[in-house]
């Protein structure tokens, strides 16, 4: 089963809904170890994005992702803006011109996009950032696909891995981003960016599950 433009559009739509629902939660997490704006930033960004896509939905997957990336880049701000912007721009680059994407192509594109995020933020797993959710998700996606399960099931497992990675940020001391200024006091709090990343993957799993 290939990933279609409709599914990608539905995915972005679903992310926007989940972010809206979790807006205050994300902000609360950011208040503890950051500056209390992650919920507002992400919500603003995905509202702008959905509106942009609604106005003139591009007709290939790559173009959709590029639009999403540009919209996030110019509306989220903060650390999350360039990181999620990079994520979607890289997906757009990998999948330029495609109207259907195979599971394997999707996994490869996702790995490349996550690597681009890590490069942009100079972050690695364990730094208590969104990478802690994104990287395990990619690993699990590839592992699942290698085991031969459907993309829907594989994304389910990837989302679960992201959530696990998200929870695993709690005991960590932040090495990147605003939380790192807190030093030891960042320990014991869940990273807001890892939380929004887990939401992105949950949204993808939900969309594929409803097919």
């Amino acid at each position, binding site marked *: 089963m290939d990933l279609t433009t409709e599914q990608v559009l539905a995915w972005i739509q679903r992310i926007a809904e989940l972010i809206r629902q979790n807006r205050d939660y994300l902000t609360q997490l950011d208040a503890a170890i950051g500056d209390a*704006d992650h919920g*507002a*930033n992400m919500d603003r960004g995905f509202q702008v994005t959905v509106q942009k896509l609604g106005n003139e939905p591009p007709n290939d997957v790559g173009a959709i992702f590029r639009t999403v990336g540009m919209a996030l*880049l110019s509306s989220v*701000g903060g650390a999350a803006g360039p990181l999620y912007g990079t994520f979607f721009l890289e997906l757009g680059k990998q999948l330029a011109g495609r109207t259907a994407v195979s599971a394997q192509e999707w996994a490869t594109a996702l790995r490349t996009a996550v690597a681009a995020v890590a490069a942009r933020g100079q972050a690695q797993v364990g730094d208590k950032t969104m990478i802690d959710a994104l990287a395990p998700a990619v690993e699990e996606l590839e592992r699942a696909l290698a085991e031969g399960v459907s993309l829907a099931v594989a994304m389910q497992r990837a989302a679960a891995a992201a959530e696990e990675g998200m929870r695993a940020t709690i005991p960590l001391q932040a090495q990147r981003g605003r939380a790192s*200024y807190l030093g030891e006091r960042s320990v014991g709090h869940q990273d807001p960016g890892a939380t929004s990343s887990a939401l992105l993957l949950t949204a993808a799993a939900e969309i594929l599950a409803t097919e």
Partner: protein
Amino acid sequence: MKKLINDPQQVVREALEGMAAAHPDLIRVSLEPKYIYRADAPRPGKVAVISGGGSGHEPMHGGFVGYGMLDAACPGEVFTSPTPDQMYEAAKRVHGGAGVLFIVKNYSGDVMNFDMAADLLRGDGIAVESVLIADDVAVESSLYSQGRRGTGTTVLAEKILGAAAERGYALDRLAELGRRVAENGRSMGMALTPCTVPHVGKPTFELGPDEVEIGIGIHGEPGRYREPLRPADEIVERLLDPILSDLPFRAGDRVICMVNSMGGTPLLELNIVYRKVAAVCAQRGVTIARNLVGAYITSLEMAGVSITLLRVDDEMLELWDDPVHTPALRWRR
């Protein structure tokens, strides 16, 4: 939340419109994307000096756009980094063919957004250099890999680099000077009361009625410690000691000293603070060659103060004294 605003979502836009109305001789404002730029831009042959960051720190950065300082400033939402398209469009508008210098405070959001803008500009064949300000000694730089936060030195860097650009410094020389300024500046701040981000609507942190936060960041980020309110002279020592011992500043050094209100602390108190700062510096043999006492890099209406010392050489001092004419800093013009 008690503020003189209309719509919490429109705070930045409306403040920009107000600035444009108040200073038509000095600046212009773009609202989409948001940036403030010199009314006489572009200045052919001059490096364009551009800064930016979250709003809520006024007059920084928009108040420093004008002759002898910034060519453009890019305001993000309150306490949120601006986006790359702002710096990209601003640079396209003001660059005079001699390249662009970004002055960036060391927050991962700011750094990444400016980096992406620099990538876009370089893609257009425009040379870009960045100067990173990471001067907040409240953050132990050795322990955290992100480095220190950028605060008060930014204001001084914008003045000095703006003057150098006005004098015609080439981009690489300007960037080299900028790094020298960044290396020689140290700051630390404290808060008496928290501030409230308009679209959040409640204070970003809580402080007891007799409690202060020493080492706070300009977005209300936690500092080194909390303690009961003490006399101003003791608070000055708590801020100055880490600053002086960090560079370290030595007897014989000349400095530019800024005593800065976090927004809600009035000048009466700043003068009391400056009195002690001057006394401690004199006692340590550090000469305050120039000073700024006022609200220059604020955190909305937060009450509190920050102190910045920048060790200067003759070149920096001369550039400091050069004429400047911006909404918030003006002399000899």
